[in-house]
C-alpha cells in the first residue's frame, strides 16, 4: 500500500473512531439521576468536555498506531536511522496556540456554568446542615417553618424551590455531597460554608460524606427527599406538632442517633 493510501485509510479510521467515541459517550449512563437544575448544567458541561476531548485522544492514539504500523523497523533496517528532522516552527506554534485556545474556551464555558449554578435566585429558603462524626442533621429555621425551628436527620426539600445550605461541623472536616445534585462542599469546623441547589425532580437520593472523617466515614450517609411543596409544608407542620407534644423527645429526631442534636431541637422548640 502506498504511503498516501495508508494515510487516507488511517484518517478515515480515526474519524470513525471519533464518531464511535462520541456516540458511546451518549450511550453510557455516566451519572446517577439528575435531581437539580445544577445537575443538568453540569452534565451538559461534562458532555461538551468529553466531545472536545475524544478527538484529541484519538489523534494521539492514531499517530502512535499509524507510526507503529508504517514506521516499525523491518528486517534489514537494523542500522538505519530516520530522517534528521529537528523541528518545525509553524507546527510547534500551532500545537501551542490551538490547545491554549481550546482550553480557554472550555474554561470560559465552565465559568458560565459555575455562574448559573451559583447565582442568587429571587427567592430561596435556608437549611442548616450539621455534620459530626458520623451523622448528619438538618435544621430548618423559623423563616422556613413559620414557627419554631425544626431538626431532622433526613433532608426534606420542596421541589422547584431554591435552597441555600449553611454547613457547620462539630468536630473534623466532612464533605456534604449530594451526587444527584452534582454538588458538594466541605463542612469545615470554625467557619460556615454555603452553597445553593434547586431540586427539580421528586424522589429520594443519597447524601454522602465525601471527605475522610474517621473510622465511621464510609457509613456516614443519609438521604435527601425531594417532595412537592404542599407535602413539604405538611411535613413541617407534622414535625412542629411532634416537637410541641414532647419537648426534646420528638420521635423522628431521636432517630438521628445524636443526643446533642436532639437536645438542640428540643430546646429550640420551646
Amino acid at each position, binding site marked *: 500500500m502506498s504511503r498516501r493510501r495508508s494515510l487516507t485509510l488511517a484518517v478515515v479510521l480515526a474519524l470513525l473512531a471519533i464518531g464511535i467515541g462520541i456516540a458511546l459517550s451518549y450511550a453510557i449512563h455516566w451519572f446517577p439521576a439528575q435531581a437539580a437544575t445544577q445537575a443538568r448544567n453540569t452534565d451538559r458541561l461534562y458532555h461538551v468536555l468529553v466531545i472536545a476531548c475524544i478527538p484529541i485522544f484519538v489523534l494521539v492514539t492514531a499517530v502512535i498506531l499509524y507510526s507503529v504500523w508504517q514506521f516499525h523497523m523491518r528486517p534489514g533496517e537494523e542500522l538505519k*536511522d530516520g530522517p534528521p528532522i529537528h523541528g518545525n516552527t509553524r507546527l510547534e506554534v500551532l500545537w501551542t496556540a490551538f490547545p491554549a485556545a481550546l482550553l480557554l474556551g472550555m474554561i470560559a464555558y465552565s465559568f458560565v456554568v459555575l455562574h448559573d449554578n451559583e447565582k442568587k435566585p429571587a427567592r430561596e429558603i435556608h437549611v442548616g446542615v450539621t455534620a459530626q462524626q458520623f451523622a448528619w442533621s438538618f435544621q430548618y429555621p423559623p423563616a422556613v417553618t413559620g414557627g419554631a425551628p425544626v431538626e431532622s436527620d433526613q433532608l426534606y426539600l420542596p421541589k422547584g424551590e431554591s435552597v441555600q445550605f449553611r454547613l457547620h461541623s462539630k468536630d473534623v472536616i466532612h464533605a456534604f*455531597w449530594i451526587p444527584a445534585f452534582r454538588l458538594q462542599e466541605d463542612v469545615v469546623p470554625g467557619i460556615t460554608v454555603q452553597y445553593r441547589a434547586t431540586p427539580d425532580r421528586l424522589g429520594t437520593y443519597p447524601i454522602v460524606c465525601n471527605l475522610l472523617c474517621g473510622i465511621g466515614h464510609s457509613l456516614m450517609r443519609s438521604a435527601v427527599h425531594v417532595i412537592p411543596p404542599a407535602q413539604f409544608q405538611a411535613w413541617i407542620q407534622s414535625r412542629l406538632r411532634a416537637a410541641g407534644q414532647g419537648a426534646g423527645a420528638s420521635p423522628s429526631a431521636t432517630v438521628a442517633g445524636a443526643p446533642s442534636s436532639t437536645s438542640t431541637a428540643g430546646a429550640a422548640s420551646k
Partner: protein
Amino acid sequence: MAAKLRAPGFYRAGWMMALGVAFAFFLTWVIRASTGHSTFRHYISGEAITTVSILAVPLLFLVGIGGFDYWFYWAMGRPTRPEDHSGHGARTWKDYFRINTDHKVIGIQYTVTSFFFLLVGGLIAMLMRAELAQPGAQFVDANTFNGLFSVHASLLIFLFVIPVFAGLANFVLPLMIGAPDMAFPRLNALSYWLLPVAGALMLGSFFAPGGAFADGWTAYAPLSTNAPIGQDFFSVGVQFAGASSIMTALNFLVTIITMRAPGMSFFRMPLLVWANFATSLLVVIATPFIAASQFFVLLDRGLGFNFFKAGNGGDVLMYQHVFWFYSHPAVYIMMLPGFGIISEIIAVKSRKPIFGYRMMAFSLLAIVVLGFTVWAHHMFTSGMAAWIRIPMAITTAIIAVPTGIKVFSWLATLWRGVLRLDTPMLFALGFLTTFTLGGISGVMLAMVPFDIHVSSSYFIVAHIHYVLFGGSLMTIFGGVYYWFPKMTGRMFDERLGKMHFWSTFVLFNLTFGPMHILGLQGMPRRVADYASRFADMNLFISIASFGLGLSTLIFLYNIVTSWRGGPVSVANPWRGMTLEWQVSSPPPIFNFDRVPTVVGGPYEYGVPGAVHGIFAPTPAAAGVGSGLARAPSE
C-alpha cells in the same frame, strides 16, 4: 567486636538506636518530673517517649551507620579522611548495605530500595481491593482499612515514585553530562540512608497503639491533630523523606550547573538532565512547605499548639494551603523525570532527533513556574474564598499547554522514524496513551462545576492512578529496562519484558478505567464499605487489580534472573549517542577513563557523521576516538 561497635555500620547503629530510646526516656522523664507530675507513674508517658524516640532514634541510626562521620571528624578537629574515593564501587553485594559515596552504587541502592517499597505498597493495595471486592466488612475493620490506604499512598509517593526517579538519575545523570561523580558524594550517601528510615517509620506505624496513621497521605487537620500516635510516624517520616529529596535535588542542581563536560552547553544536555534540573528546582522550593505542614501538626499534637484548632483561633484551611503548596508541585516532581526518560527512549528507539528540542526544555521550565500557581485546584470544594477558584482554574487549564507540547513533540519524533518496538519502547508508547487519558481527566477536573461533583470521589482515584501509574510507573518501568544493561552489564529477557508490558497495560486499564464511572456515579474514595449498587463494578476492579499485581511478578522474575545470569550486554546495545552509552557496561569506577568533550547535540540520529561527544586521545591510545565509532572500553 569492640572495633565493630566503633566502626560505622549496623552494629554501631544498633547500640546508638538503643541510646536514642534511652535519651527519649530520660528527656521526657526530666521534663515531666520538673513540671509538676508528682507520683512516679506520671513521670513516664509512653506516648511522649514514642514521639521523642521517632525523632531521636532515626537520627542516631544515621550517625551509627556513618552518615555524618566525615563532618564529625572535621568538627572535632580530628584528622579528616579526604575523599580519596576509597568508598567507591561495590565489590560484593554487602557493599550495598554500607555507606558508599559512588553515585552508581547509590543509584542502585535507591532504585532497589524504592522497588521494595513499590512491592509493599502494591501488596497493601491488594489487601484493599480484597476488602472492596464486596460491600460490607470482610477482612479488615474500618480503622485498619483507613490505615492501609494511608500507608499505601504515603509509601508509593514518598518512598517509591519520588526516590526511584532520584535513583535512576543518580546512576545516569553524572554519566550523561560527562562527570566522574555527583558534586557532593557524602551528601548523596546520607540522602540515600534517610529513605529506609522514612520507610521504616511509615511501616512501623502499623505497630503503634491505635494503628497506623489513618487519615490519608493528605493528613488533613483537625482529623490528624486528634489521631492516635501512629500519626506522628507519618509527620516525622515525611521529614526524613523530604530531607532526602532536598539533599538529592541540591546535589543534582550543583552537579548539573558545575560539572558538565567541556562543550556541553545547557542546550546540548540530554532531556533527562533537563528534566531533573527542572524537578530539582521544584523539590528545593516546594518541599519545605510539606515539612512545615507536618511540623505544625506535630506541634499541635505534641506540645498543644493551636495552628489548626478552630475553637482556639486556629485556621483549619491553612493546613490545606500549606500542604498543597508542596503537594501540587509534587505531582510534577513525580512526572517531569519520567518525561526525561521518555524523551531518551523515544529518540533512541525512533532513530530520530527529538522534535523541537528547545521547546521541550522550555516547556519543562514553564511547568516549574506554572506548577506553583495551581495548588488551590485541590480545594475547589474546601470552603475557601470562592473567587480563588477562578484564577486557579485558569492556570490549571493553561498548565496543560506545555504538557501538550511535550506529547505532540514525542508524536512528531515517532513520525517517519525507524521504530524498534522492544520493551522500553512499548512502555514509552503505552505511557503516551495512558498519560494522555490522565491529562485529559486532569483538564476536565480544572472545570470547577464538574470538579465540584467529582472532587474526592473515585473519579479522583482513577485520575491520580492514570497519572502516577499510567504516567510515572510506565516511565519507570521503561527507564529500568532501558538502562538495565548499563547498570548491571547484562541483558534482560525481551520476551518476558513484552509479556510484562502487555499484561500491565491491559490490566491497568481494566483496573482504573471503571473507577472513573464509579466516581461519576457517586462513590466516595477512602471508604471501607460502599452502597450495594456499586458492588458489580468493584468486584470487576478487584479481579483486574489482582491480575495487575501478579503481572509485577513477571517483572521481578525477569530482573532477578537477568541480573544473576542474563547474557552479558555490550556497552551500547541501543546505539545511543548520549555519553552514558559510550562507556563500558557497567561503567568504570570513575565513569570516564578519558574526559569527554561534547561537540554536538545529544540526539543527532540520522545526521551523517554526527557525534555528541569525543574522547580526547590519551598517550596510551593515540588517534581520535569518536563518540559513535569508538569501541567500548571493556
